[in-house]
């Protein structure tokens, strides 16, 4: 494979150069493609210190990336949105080729780093090939647990925040409780929760909900409290009744704050999720990490961490999309 591909990409480049002016060639892309070809060659040709499976698949993957970059580099501005994105991340493609090569060298090729603790790229790839089923199920259970806890927590936090932001009496009673209990990390409740709740699953839902609810409550509350009084006066002179003031004035005005609370809540809920899965729930990525540790399966831990990072990042991205959509009237939003 490695012997076929480089000439192929070179010919593609030459062809492009003859058809279009040289300026339309994407030089960073070519360099990045070459770097990935180099990475593939390094993986394939440099013998491993301890032979490992999936080296060839890894090299093939590197070549696919190289090919992709070469095609985008050669076709210039042609191609859809994907090509634009790839061009934008050109320097990143180059840097990651160097990182993968370096990592490959210090682990699989030379064993500079102690082997079981620092897994080589191909051993992590091996986990994805051989254990994808268990990883997939773990992701499913983690997302399910998180979704339940986050949903109830966000809902409870939002309702509490609106209530105490609106009603002086509610604020009088809830505020002191919130001040005392709120700052307590939800994980501190963990031993008690596992004891009180019938299942470790329901206990975890409760803990995640608790962790989510606190920041959502505080931010919703402060959002409602900081609504410009004139909005209420204007709405009242136009004939608005209290329900209209709550749902059409207070809540929309407080929404930017509410989203800050939702982001903070999502962050804390990740932490609680992992701890709960490590200590009680017999499923999910936290449990997978724990299980891998028990077997000293370090590559599995790296793989699980990678999957967890992707999961959390995806969830945050989804929340950003929801916010951008709901707050499209605001200018100058931070993009994720």
């Amino acid at each position, binding site marked *: 494979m490695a012997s076929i591909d480089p000439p192929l990409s070179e010919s593609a480049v030459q062809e492009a150069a003859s058809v279009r002016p040289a300026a339309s060639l994407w030089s960073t892309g070519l360099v990045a493609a070459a770097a990935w070809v180099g990475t593939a060659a390094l993986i394939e040709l440099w013998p491993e210190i301890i032979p490992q499976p999936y080296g060839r698949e890894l090299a093939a993957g590197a070549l696919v990336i190289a090919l992709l970059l070469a095609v985008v580099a050669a076709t210039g501005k042609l191609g859809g949105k994907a090509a634009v994105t790839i061009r934008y991340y050109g320097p990143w493609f180059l840097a990651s080729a160097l990182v993968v090569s370096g990592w490959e060298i210090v682990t699989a090729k030379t064993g500079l780093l102690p082997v079981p603790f620092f897994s080589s790229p191909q051993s992590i790839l091996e986990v994805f090939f051989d254990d994808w089923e268990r990883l997939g199920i773990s992701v499913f259970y983690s997302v399910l647990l998180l979704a339940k806890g986050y949903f109830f927590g966000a809902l409870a936090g939002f309702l509490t925040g609106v209530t105490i932001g609106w009603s002086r009496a509610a604020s009088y009673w809830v505020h002191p409780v919130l001040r005392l209990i709120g700052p307590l990390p939800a994980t501190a409740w963990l031993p008690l929760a596992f004891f009180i709740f019938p299942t470790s699953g329901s206990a975890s839902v409760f803990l995640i909900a608790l962790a989510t609810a606190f920041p959502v409550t505080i931010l919703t509350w402060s959002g409602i409290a900081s609504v*410009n009084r*004139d*909005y209420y*006066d*204007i*709405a*009242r*002179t*136009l*004939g*608005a*009744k209290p329900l*209209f003031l709550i749902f*059409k*004035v207070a809540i*929309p*005005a407080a*929404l930017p704050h509410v989203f800050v609370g939702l982001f903070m809540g999502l962050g804390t809920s990740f932490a609680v999720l992992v701890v709960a899965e490590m200590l009680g729930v017999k499923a999910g990525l936290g449990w997978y990490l724990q299980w891998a540790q028990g077997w000293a399966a370090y590559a599995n831990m790296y793989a699980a961490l990678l999957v967890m990072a992707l999961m959390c990042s995806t969830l945050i991205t989804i929340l950003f999309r929801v916010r951008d959509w709901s*707050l499209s*009237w*605001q*200018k100058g939003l931070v993009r994720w």
Partner: protein
Amino acid sequence: MVVLATKEAELPAAGQQIDIRNVSHQFELEGEPLPVLDNVDFSVEPGSFVALLGPSGCGKSTLLRLLAGLDQPTNGELSVDGEIVGEPDPSRILVFQDPTLFPWRTVWDNVALGLEAQGVLKRSRHRVDNAIELVGLKGFDKAYPHQLSGGMSQRVALARALVNEPRLLLLDEPLGKLDSLTRLTMQTELVSLWQRAGLTAVLVTHDVEEALFLSQRVLIFGPRPARIVADISVDLPYPRHRGDPRLAELRREALGHLGLAATW
């Protein structure tokens, strides 16, 4: 213009009568009482146009808030059509000094706010369109407030009030933020609107010429705590002409009451 066309048939005498009896008002400022209105007492005939002039901070906005029912006076009473002003009511609309549009609503939705709050929006969507057209913002229905200029925002605020077909329109320097050309156009618009609708209009302004050009009567307040120092009747028919020598005379008189005679 079109907005209020249907109204005339339904309501023979559309304007409301205002009676303000010995109203005094004070605020608390850092524990100290701050008297703002001092024994203000006047009446406004139904369907007339009255302007309030006075130095900055004397209490003009406060008086309008009392009339709208947003605050209750410390002493005295205000009544509209013989009834004491209690809660705000959409028949009396206050256009605030700041446009204060709702930033999460488009221009159209901002103007529709009152009808929506009163639960009549479904039947009267055309009234929203007409009001937007009236203030010259056709085509900006879907714009958000942050996409408007200051003057445009002020016009949206005006449309938001007019769409409710108020019988008493309380205007707190509604043209203050407009450029001078738009301002002149809007002044003429205000007059014809008021004439067509037969509503009662109370206009607060800093601009002596504007007060004289628009209103039938100008009340001049002294410095805080505000009390009425002069009641000038502008005995000129509409449409008026800005160059009218009678207006110049009245202007000199008004400036005299404001302590600015020397500048004439």
